[in-house]
């Protein structure tokens, strides 16, 4: 009996001790990391001649393309930047579908994130909650080239409460809305999409398509990519709850979901869905567009457009893609904010992060590496004089191992090579496209949602419930649209609109915009 008790005592002590040491160890590690951080900060402050190489963590997105060469490219990037800025970087590429979630988790935990790509309204949400570092001083000191390249007026679109929190990538800063289609299928079935100009024309082509191949869907999409009409011919002012209709030609904030244009669009989508023109699984499927198109039963989809989009979309989907422009190119704060780089509050080396970012806007070697991969492996030079590149022999959009469709996320793609199939002067075209696009009157204005957090979250919950179904045509707008509008109103969309109008008026008065 006694022996048993002693055995129990020994066991209990052992268990308790092992549990305690378990905790102790992790505590020690945490401490080490902290002191390490201080060391580096100090050495950076004293600007030793013998600078230590620091490790940066960078987060960017992909849309699920094959990226097997990423590690090699990362290695090459490090070999290149180490002597230049005494830093190495880890490229973390996250699928766009789960990116916002990943970012939330990273911000909530205290993970090291030094440079982070942010998309759309995520930037203002994060900035409003103090998750991002202000960049004004860093930009002035270590990123002055960026200011020169992007221009003060474009950078102003990424200011929140007077502080710059993000730097937009240099790409298509304006946006047109297009319908993209597989030209080979179009010609094979004789649909005549090349002559189509409007949604009505496209509808007629769909009719022929459906007759000839009832299994073919005219519009592809999936539940992770969001709705079909997040953007159309309105300036969303960061989140679509209260918009400027008609491309921001008036400074009057209105309820998008009750506007005539929106109702017309969703009614048409319902009609199309019922007739089988839209992929029937669109609200539940999680299959990515490239995989959907690989089935050969998808004709096209809606997306925004720019001078390179035919080539880039063809590359992504592995087939000849043409487009029909449905909404003319326009620039608003939201189109500028589509992709921008931020330095989160938990960056360990903000100064190095800015130095790297500056390189991403000015160093064409680095830009080519990030956008297209390693020369000879992921691309070869086809025309040295014009800086034209293409796939090495035996590689194509299906078999490539580095995702070269993401140039628009990597800083300044306009100083890099051009891809075979694009016009040699496509970068100049892009700049011209940006400069000539129609500008929303509210360009440069960003909405600060902190006074209407509750309303915005409530609206977002309502949006999540209805929008995908309504905008993809799978729900009947005659029944659900009134419910959607009603719930938005009780969630407080009118309060948001009033607040937006107030801020917009103040901004307009301060900047003398009429």
């Amino acid at each position, binding site marked *: 009996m006694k022996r048993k008790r002693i055995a129990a005592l020994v066991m209990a002590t052992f268990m308790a001790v092992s549990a305690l040491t378990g905790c102790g160890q992790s505590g020690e590690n945490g401490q080490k990391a902290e002191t390490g951080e201080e060391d580096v900060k100090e050495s950076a402050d004293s600007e030793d001649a013998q600078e230590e190489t620091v490790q940066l963590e960078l987060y960017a997105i992909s849309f699920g393309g094959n990226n097997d060469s990423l590690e090699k490219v990362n290695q090459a990037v490090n070999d290149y930047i180490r002597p230049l800025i005494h830093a190495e970087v880890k490229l973390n590429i996250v699928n766009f579908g789960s990116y916002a979630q990943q970012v939330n988790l990273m911000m909530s935990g205290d993970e090291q994130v030094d440079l982070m790509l942010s998309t759309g309204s995520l930037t203002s949400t994060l900035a409003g909650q103090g998750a991002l570092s202000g960049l004004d001083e860093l930009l002035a000191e270590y990123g002055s080239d960026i200011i020169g390249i992007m221009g003060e007026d474009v950078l102003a679109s990424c200011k929140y409460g007077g502080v710059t929190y993000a730097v937009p990538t240099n790409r298509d800063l304006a946006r047109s809305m297009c319908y993209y289609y597989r030209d080979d299928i179009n010609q094979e079935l004789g649909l005549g999409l090349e002559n189509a100009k409007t949604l009505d024309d496209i509808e007629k082509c769909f009719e022929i398509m459906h007759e000839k191949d009832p299994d073919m869907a005219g519009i592809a999409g999936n539940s992770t990519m969001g709705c079909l009409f997040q953007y159309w011919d309105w300036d969303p002012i960061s989140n679509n709850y209260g918009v400027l209709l008609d491309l921001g030609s008036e400074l009057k904030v209105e309820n998008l979901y009750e506007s005539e244009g929106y109702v017309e669009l969703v009614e048409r989508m319902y009609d199309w869905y019922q007739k089988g023109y839209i992929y029937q699984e669109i*609200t539940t499927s999680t299959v990515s567009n490239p995989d959907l198109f690989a089935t050969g039963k998808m004709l096209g989809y809606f997306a925004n457009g720019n001078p390179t989009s035919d080539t880039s979309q063809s590359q992504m989907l592995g087939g000849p893609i043409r487009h029909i422009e449905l909404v003319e190119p326009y620039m608003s704060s939201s189109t500028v904010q589509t992709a921008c780089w931020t330095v989160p509050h938990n960056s360990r080396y903000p100064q190095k992060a800015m130095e790297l970012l500056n390189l991403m806007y000015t160093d064409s070697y680095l830009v080519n590496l990030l956008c297209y991969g390693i020369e000879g492996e992921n691309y070869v030079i086809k025309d040295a004089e014009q800086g034209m590149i293409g796939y090495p022999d035996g590689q194509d959009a299906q078999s490539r191992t580095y995702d070269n469709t993401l140039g628009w996320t990597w800083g300044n793609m306009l100083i890099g090579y051009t891809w075979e199939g694009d016009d040699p002067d496509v970068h100049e075209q892009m700049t011209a496209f940006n400069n000539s696009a129609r500008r929303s009157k509210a360009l440069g204005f960003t909405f600060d949602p902190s006074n209407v957090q509750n309303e915005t979250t409530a609206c*977002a919950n309502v949006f999540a419930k209805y929008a995908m179904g309504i905008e993809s045509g799978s729900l009947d707008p005659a029944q659900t649209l009134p419910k959607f509008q009603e719930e938005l109103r009780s969630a407080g969309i009118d309060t948001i609109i009033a607040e937006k109008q107030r801020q917009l008026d103040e901004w307009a008065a301060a900047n003398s915009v009429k």
Partner: protein
Amino acid sequence: MRKKARRYAPIYLMALPALLYLLINNYIPMGGMVIAFKNYQYNKGIWGSSWSGFKNFEFLFKTNDAWTITRNTILYNLAFILLDTIMAITLAILLNEIRSKKMKKFYQTVMLLPYLLSMVIVSYLVYGFLSPDQGYVNKTILAALKSDGQNWYARAGIWPFVLVFVHMWVIVGYNSIIYFSTLVGIDRSFYEAADVDGASMWQKICFITIPNLKPTMVTMCLLSIGRIFYSDFGLFYQVPLNSGALYDVTSTIDTYVYRGLMQSSNVGMSSAAGVYQSLVGFMLVLFANWIVNKISRENALF
């Protein structure tokens, strides 16, 4: 007193790791509830952020969300508890009547299988039936009836039944095995005596089997009531494929909190929803315990 302490010391010492675990894992994080009452700023941390009172809770009550998710959580779980018990007992009794030992083993295994599947797999099994384009229901059954296919993932009406059905399919086999083990333990002489008295099968079930199962039933029910607010996340999130059109009937407090944190990116508001969940859950456990106290004291939790 000292003697007592010495006598029990090893036992307490043995409990220490588990107590520490409880403290670290379950009690210390409760401090995080404070975020729900703060205007949380990432760079200022929890204590540096300013207080905001009940402001974070407002969004829950702006729409009917709070009511919808509470209703769903409670009603689904009540349906589960009721139907699970009935089905599991029925199955256990049927199983008990099978004479062939081999077949008995076979049925037991087959019934248990769904319980071992991950909910993600279950969700795609359901998708196989209900997919609007390729699903068995639309493609085969409705096509044979010459009737038009439906987009099931947009029709909220059918989902209460689908979810209850799927839940039962998954769980009933497992529960019935627990009842079955009690059944096996019932003294055979009861049945022999009943046979002598000329009792019918039905009478034997009503007057011997069911009364003998009662303690197990009470324990099982209590266990499930205590867990009402751990709504089966996989079932409510994965099986409807997170389809927005179904939120009214598939949102439970768990999935709502999850979506809140993942989509709205507002830490304060999602922990407000979390606090709401804990409060309602706590009240439910107290309520359930009160009822059990009335019915059978010895089974109550406290």
